[in-house]
């Protein structure tokens, strides 16, 4: 009996990652059939004279960077508050504007200015994050309603910071952050995602944050009665999301060396929430897996890249994406999952009975 429980628990753990993994597998098989050279990676000499990796696979993991970073923070907020932050795109526009403002203001752009600019935009994003977090944790406003405020006005605030429509920056350092560091063939945004994943893993390993967040998400009153400061945990999740927002905003700005407050990471909030959902995380809060969300982000980007490679018109891409995502979410829904486990259980049960019968004989 205990063996079986363990086995079920194990399958349950993999179960969460099942949907993104299956989606990944299907997309890979589909692309290999469609065009075997889809995943080929080659090295090229780019215009700044670096040898770099190129190909669809690189485009996918590179292009998904902002989404992956945001998905990390969104997973935490989802787990702790049982709701989502829909203002991440607007907040990233604010963070990016602060970054651009400081870089443009500096007489000479060096490593220190870029670090200072990043820290400043981090602080600003954390302040806006804690504003959202306060509304949710202290005033108990539903996350979607609370963050609707910043969603609506965020991009106007971003405009006020720089006052112009598309201010540009130009410096070898920012362009290295957005594309390639000289001598490194991997796109810098990919490295940044890896660093963020490592940092969050360390955070979970050396603090009780993961446990407390899950506890608050599963049963808030029980968590409080056990001495967890639930308000603090919720607030913290929004502040950590703020850090992710500033990182994503900076990547977005550095990629293009310009900020357009209207289009920077436009509609990314929806993709981020989707990444969390595809990653098998319960959107109602509780247990979570960062790895699932990140896989989800790559699935979404792979889908987009595949559709572009198939020359689907970009106006139709959203519709096709929606169809695939509906399928994924339905397959991952508790109802279908329960049905599936029941069927599997029946099969297993039948197998056991047969085995038992044999032994009896």
């Amino acid at each position, binding site marked *: 009996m205990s063996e079986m429980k363990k086995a079920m628990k194990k399958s349950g753990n993999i179960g969460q990652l099942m949907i993104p993994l299956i989606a990944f597998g299907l997309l890979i098989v589909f692309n290999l059939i469609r065009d075997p050279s889809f995943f080929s990676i080659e090295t090229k000499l780019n*215009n*700044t004279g670096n040898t770099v990796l190129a190909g669809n696979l690189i485009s996918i993991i590179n292009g998904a960077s902002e989404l992956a970073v945001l998905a990390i923070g969104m997973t935490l907020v989802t787990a702790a508050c049982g709701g989502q932050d829909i203002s991440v795109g607007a907040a990233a526009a604010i963070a990016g504007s602060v970054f651009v403002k400081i870089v443009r203001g500096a007489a000479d752009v060096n490593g220190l200015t870029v670090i200072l600019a990043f820290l400043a935009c981090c602080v600003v994003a954390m302040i806006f994050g804690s504003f959202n977090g306060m509304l949710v944790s202290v005033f108990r406003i539903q996350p979607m309603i609370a963050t609707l405020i910043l969603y609506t006005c965020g991009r106007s605030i971003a*405009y006020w910071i720089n006052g112009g*429509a598309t201010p*540009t920056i130009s410096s070898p350092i920012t362009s290295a952050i957005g594309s390639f560091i000289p001598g490194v063939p991997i796109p810098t945004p990919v490295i940044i995602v890896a660093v963020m994943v490592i940092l969050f893993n360390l955070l979970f390993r050396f603090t009780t944050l993961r446990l407390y967040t899950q506890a608050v998400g599963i049963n808030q009153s029980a968590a409080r009665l056990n001495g967890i400061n639930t308000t603090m945990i919720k607030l913290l999740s929004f502040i950590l999301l703020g850090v992710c927002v500033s990182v994503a905003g900076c990547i977005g700005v550095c990629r*293009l060396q*310009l900020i*357009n407050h209207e289009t920077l990471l436009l509609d990314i909030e929806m993709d981020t929430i989707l990444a969390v959902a595809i990653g098998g995380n319960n959107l109602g809060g509780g247990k979570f897996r960062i790895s699932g969300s990140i896989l989800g982000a790559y699935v979404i980007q792979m889908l987009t*890249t595949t559709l572009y490679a198939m020359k689907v018109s970009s*106006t139709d891409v959203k519709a096709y994406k929606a169809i695939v995502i509906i399928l994924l979410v339905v397959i991952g829904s508790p109802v279908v999952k329960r049905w599936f486990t029941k069927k599997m259980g029946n099969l297993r049960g039948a197998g056991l009975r047969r085995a038992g019968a044999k032994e009896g004989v």
Partner: protein
Amino acid sequence: MKKLFALVLALALCLSLVSFSHADDLIKVGVVNNPPSESGYRAANVKDFESVFTAENGYELNTFYSIKNDEQLQAASGFITDGVDVLMISAAETTGWDEVLTAAKEAGIKVYLFDRMIDVPEDLYEAAVVSDMAKEGETAVNWLLAQNLPEYKVIHIQGAMGSDAQIGRTGALDAQFEAGTMVKVAQQTATWDEAEAKNIVEAVINSGEAFNVIYAENDGMAKGAVAALDEHGITHGVNGDVIVMGFDCNKWALKELKAGNWNYDGQCSPFQAQIISDLIKGVKTSDVKKIINEEKGFDAATITDDDIATYGLGED
């Protein structure tokens, strides 16, 4: 003491009245426009009106900015009640203006439209100063044809589908695709999103298809496209493998042109204020109601620093 205070107040009131009556020799104008935060174009447009309709030039300027048509309508009615001499409008929507403009006509207020047309009978306004987006596209495509490339393999990055700028700038190029003089390698909308433009170009590069022209319907998208070229080691601009074309003439974009990184940038002029001012003062007259604002196209080979200073929008 109280009486003295009242006296002072009354005096102050009289003085202020006198100073107000001074303003009467100025031409009182009301400008209804979209807010400067809408785009770089709009920011330059708003600045243009604020710099032309000044007290030095003999105007008293009242402004109202909103992207909402009903708010704009209300503001226009407000200006009419205030008794402005001239009303200038760049409407958020083309419909709903009949009533307000009729009221303005009855009050003897001259109405000028700028940047955008409104669906009203022509007798309701003095003149409309607008851009011809289709002509912008033609100018650009004619420039491209004049380059005499052995072949034209074009990546066409469109703006938000259905917008005036997209329809106008797409038309001329579509005609070439149909005529077979140019080959359409890709035609995708990036809805003015720079990052999306980069994705579109990256997808074409990864597919291995050859191309030698990027026709982006605004500067931002051209910049996104160029970022993709740079990452994949494809040369562009003057003496490069790929010709890069943009629109809007942002200052930074014209600098890219000057540096030879891009080849062409088409103007979409936000400078209508001087034309309207000339019309009001009778310096200029027009036989037609619809005045097309003259727009240029800049070539990397011939652009000068003066051009950048004169025609460049926004900051650098």
